[in-house]
């Protein structure tokens, strides 16, 4: 091992930064989805939990973890995302 | 061997605390819905007016919470094995554990005292009830120090007297007590003394602590008593 992180990690990092900017833009009210009922909110939540999923998968290295652990993490992400969207949009 | 029997009984005291205390509180009417900081004076006075039921239930619950003392002792015995020559964390757990027992006992005795004379002035009843509940909910420090001491000792234990995940559970339980002093600042809502993140969270996590410690200690006592299992444990270490 030469001590360098795989390129995938850097790609995920850039993706996270971009996603953060997108959600900030969506949330700042200047986005064109303002009229749609909760569409911006739903998108914001979805993007956020996608970010969390990737932090788990690639930063926490859960992609090479035992499937039980990965499943537990993903269940948390899914359940909280669904609950958040339900409470925000419905 | 008698010592092992005593150790095992003390370990069982952990889950027994949960059972007996819960029964006591159910009888007294503290559970399922306890009095809240937002309860009206009439509600509080009314609660303590069912004096026989409340007295009986609270007395049972005081016996229940006193069962933490044997558990603290058996935790201490095992922590000495973990630490060796300078059992500072063991002492810390014993001292703070004893304090937690008192912190659980006094408020319940206070509530029992309120029920002793239900026809007191309502203001007095209200004040005593406030004191009892706030004393019950807010003193987090002895509990947290106890849990952290146990956790650190387990994680530093080369011999793996107790499984390492128990150490992490202790850290999580300690963390769950952090919001409790917020009970002083809120009279209603999820951070009041009856709030979901104060009373219910602490009740749940403390019960988990008692049950997890009791059961894993029981297993550890059994394993150290059985020479075959000891040999396996020795090679594992």
């Amino acid at each position, binding site marked *: *091992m*030469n*001590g*360098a*992180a*795989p390129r995938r990690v*850097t790609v995920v*990092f850039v993706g996270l*930064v971009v996603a*953060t900017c997108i*959600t*900030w833009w*969506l*949330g700042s009210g200047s986005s064109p989805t303002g009229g749609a009922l909760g569409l911006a*909110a739903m998108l*914001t*939540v979805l993007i*956020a939990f996608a*970010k*969390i999923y990737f*932090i*788990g998968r*690639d*930063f*926490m*290295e*859960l992609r*090479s*973890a*035992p499937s039980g*652990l*990965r499943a*537990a*993490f993903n269940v948390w992400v899914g359940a*909280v995302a669904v*609950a*958040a969207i339900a*409470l*925000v949009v419905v | 061997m008698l010592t092992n029997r005593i150790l095992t009984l003390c370990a069982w005291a952990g889950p027994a605390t949960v059972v007996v205390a819960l029964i006591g509180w159910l009888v007294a009417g503290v559970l399922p819905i306890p009095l809240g900081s937002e309860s009206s004076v009439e509600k509080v006075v009314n609660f303590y007016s069912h004096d026989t039921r409340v007295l009986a239930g609270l007395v049972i619950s005081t016996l229940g919470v006193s069962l933490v003392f044997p558990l603290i002792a058996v935790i201490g015995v095992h922590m000495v094995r973990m630490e060796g020559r300078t059992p500072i964390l063991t002492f810390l757990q014993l001292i703070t554990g004893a304090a937690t027992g008192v912190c659980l006992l006094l408020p319940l005795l206070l509530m029992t005292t309120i029920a002793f004379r239900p026809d007191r002035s309502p203001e007095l009843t209200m004040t005593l009830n406030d004191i009892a509940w706030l004393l019950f909910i807010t003193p987090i420090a002895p509990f947290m120090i106890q849990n952290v001491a146990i956790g650190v000792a387990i994680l530093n234990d080369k011999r*793996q007297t107790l*499984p*390492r995940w128990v*150490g*992490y*559970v202790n*850290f*999580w339980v300690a*963390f*769950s007590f*952090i*919001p409790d002093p917020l009970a002083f600042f809120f009279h209603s809502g*999820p*951070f009041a003394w009856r709030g979901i*993140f104060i009373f219910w969270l602490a009740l749940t996590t403390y019960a988990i602590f008692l049950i997890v410690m009791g059961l894993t200690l029981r297993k550890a006592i059994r394993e150290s008593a059985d020479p*075959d*299992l000891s*040999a396996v*444990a020795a*090679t*594992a270490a």
Partner: protein
Amino acid sequence: MTHAQVRGDPDLPEFLWGSDGVEDGPRPSSPRPAKTRPGHTPGEAGLWIFILGDMTLFAAILIVFLWERRSDPVVFGESAHQLIQPIGAANTLVLVLSSYLVVRAVFAHRGGRYPQARRLVAAAVGCAAVFAGLKAFEYYSEISSGHTPSSGTFFTFYFVLTGLHLLHVIVGTVLLLAWQAMLKGRRSWTGSQKVAEGIASYWHMVDLLWVAIFTLVYLVSAE
């Protein structure tokens, strides 16, 4: 590692190990069976009980927050607009960057590149300091505008959530510094793997919790 894992039969699924481990007899004192277990747990299994348990606690508080919001979305919206979104966003980026640095530090430590790992961990600690500084400024400006934890339900949750999170940042920073000390002592990867990975996983948890808090408290509430 628990007794069960060491005296378990590597050909059996993990959940069948250890229940009657005595029958297998004492295992030879070799280290855990390499590569026959499916997947590698970063850090150690017990730590994940804490991490997932912690995440669940935060999730519960966030869910209750969103539930409370439904009874008064307008007031929540107005309160949320009092928050300084750019600081929240900056803090999100700072933590994401620190997480990235921590991942690279893990790989550097694995590869024996100690100076590089030390620089990366130091940079992550620097990010934590920036986060804390921004947070302090944010708290100061909110409190001086009259918004305190008792200024209504929104601000109660805001201060409790961000306060608990800040505690985690502080603990995480202490852990990062402990890792830094290990790196200075040039502890080998085999000796430090569990601890370093555990500290890294804890830090990523701190990062992802902030993503959730920023999204739901700063952004969604303000919409």
